[in-house]
């Protein structure tokens, strides 16, 4: 376990380093930071002065080391557009997206586990096909269309939920529903195929032979073993939703990290873009690390080769 942890953590660090390098390059490619900072009408000597002050005239690898050192101390520079520290912006916006992602993941797990179980109990049955159809609908409906359909139904016709703005539970519910519908199929499929495997196993046959009631078999015996991969898939989905919420945040005017990034791209404010890509990737790496460790702790059968 210990050597596994060390190897896995080392891998995560390497991945993060590589991603940080990609982010750094992205920032460099985005244009001359000195010119962006000085403004279009600034004189050449002022631009040169800024370049010297910020050390942008030094070789690239020194700049990267410098940038990395600062990044590790939570300093990713200032936004051109907002005039604030980039990390401050990210720290303001990240919690909203985290809340949205957590809510969406929660909703999709809650819906997907019973659906996947029902489907996996008898593969090929009518129920199974109905669930697979739901999974197909979820995977094929573009999130922005789901969002508009929800707005039209729950917001305009039934008037159950507010349409835009705000970051409380009421305001986040509709966007979370839209996201969870898209995230659900992956979890349904994993629960379903887990259930198919488990239902064919010897211990379930024993349970059946003992004369246990079907519900008891499904929930007390089968469910537990199908949940192992769900932990991994759910945390990966959560990470995916952190980055994938751009569209939804856009439609529902939620001030999360996705909306921030989108605005920053339109403003050509690449220090912000770089910081949010880096932050979401870091969250994702940490989540997958967490998933691997949890999986390994729950299921002794999982061994790294």
């Amino acid at each position: 376990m210990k050597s596994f942890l060390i190897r896995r953590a080392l891998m995560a660090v390497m991945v993060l380093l590589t991603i940080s390098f990609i982010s750094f390059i992205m920032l460099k490619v985005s244009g001359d930071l000195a010119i962006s900072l000085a403004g279009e009408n600034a004189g050449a000597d002022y631009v040169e002065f800024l370049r010297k002050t910020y050390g942008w005239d030094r070789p690239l690898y020194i700049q990267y080391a410098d940038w990395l050192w600062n990044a590790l101390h939570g300093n990713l520079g200032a936004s051109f557009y907002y005039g604030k520290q980039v990390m401050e912006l990210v720290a303001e916006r990240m919690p909203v997206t985290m809340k949205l992602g957590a809510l969406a993941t929660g909703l999709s797990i809650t819906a997907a586990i019973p659906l996947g179980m029902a489907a996996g109990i008898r593969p090929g049955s009518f129920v199974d096909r109905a669930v697979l159809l739901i999974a197909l609908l979820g995977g094929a409906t573009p999130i922005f269309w789901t969002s508009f359909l929800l707005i039209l139904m729950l917001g305009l016709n039934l008037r159950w939920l507010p349409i835009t703005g705000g970051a409380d539970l009421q305001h986040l519910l509709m966007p979370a529903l839209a996201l969870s519908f898209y995230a659900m199929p992956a979890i349904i499929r994993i629960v379903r195929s887990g259930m198919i495997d488990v239902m064919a196993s010897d211990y379930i046959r024993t349970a059946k032979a003992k004369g246990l009631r079907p519900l008891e078999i499904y929930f007390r015996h089968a469910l537990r073993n199908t949940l192992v991969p769900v932990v991994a898939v759910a945390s990966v989905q959560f990470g995916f939703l952190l980055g994938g919420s751009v569209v939804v945040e856009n439609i529902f005017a939620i001030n999360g990290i996705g909306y921030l990034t989108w605005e920053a791209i339109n403003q050509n404010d690449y220090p912000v873009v770089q910081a949010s890509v880096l932050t979401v990737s870091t969250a994702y790496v940490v989540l997958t690390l967490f998933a691997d460790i949890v999986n390994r702790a729950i299921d002794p059968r999982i061994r790294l080769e």
Partner: protein
Amino acid sequence: MRAPTSLVTEPSLSRWRLPFAGLGVWTGGAILVLVLLTAIFAPLIAPHSPYDQSLANRLVKPVFMGGNWDHILGTDHLGRDVLSRLIYGSRMSLAVGFGTIMISAALGIGLGLTAGFRGGRTDAFVVFLLTVRLSLPIMLAAIALVGLFGNSLWLMMLILAFFLWDQFLVVSRALAMRLKNAEFVLAARAAGFSELHIMFREVLPNMLGPLVIVATLEMAHAIMLESALSFLGLGIRPPAASWGLMIAEAKDFVYFEAWMVNIPGFAIFVLVAGITLFGEGLRTVFENSSDQR
């Protein structure tokens, strides 16, 4: 987001699944062919030009909502014919779909075959690349790159392909590892064929089935991403027609003219669902036939 493990055969497939899968292949294939034909013959089918604006004919409702037969699916806020834009928009979706998987398949399969065959350090490095790619948030990173490098059709395909090669790699690597010591490979090696020849001429044809399945599912993925990028205003530029862009342009009218959003939304849904049905159906048929061997 698809788990590579699903390529492993599921036990206890009942007799019901196969006809159903066959139905999926046929339905999905029919949809794909239909959209393909629409895209190819767009100029012949489209009743109007997708670009001609007419301020006198703005926001005409579709015929099933009390509009007229001249504009079957109505007109948008600039008076452009929605049906024609829908027909031309299919070109965008399919071009991005096919173009992206061509590039990402080349990238993923190339890496996967090399990693699976060479093993050792090469393999470890490729797996590391895969981990890095999987840790980049697709949507955020894609919009960042499109924002940086612009949004011509080619760039968009390149950028999407840069994010969609992972499944090609996972599948081809696993199969290469399995086939690397197969008899026909040993025979080819004994006959003195080069490693490259063995990889691409002997082994690759033997993994086409699973790779075609990956290709269909990734194509659906690419079409979905293109529409999202266009929706965010980072895809193809107006006045070109793209289904995502049509929704983006209609979103200001969603409260009054919901059909403007629903028509292109439904079009994306049908195409993506069709491709997915086709791919998933192929997988089921493929697994069953390889069971019987």
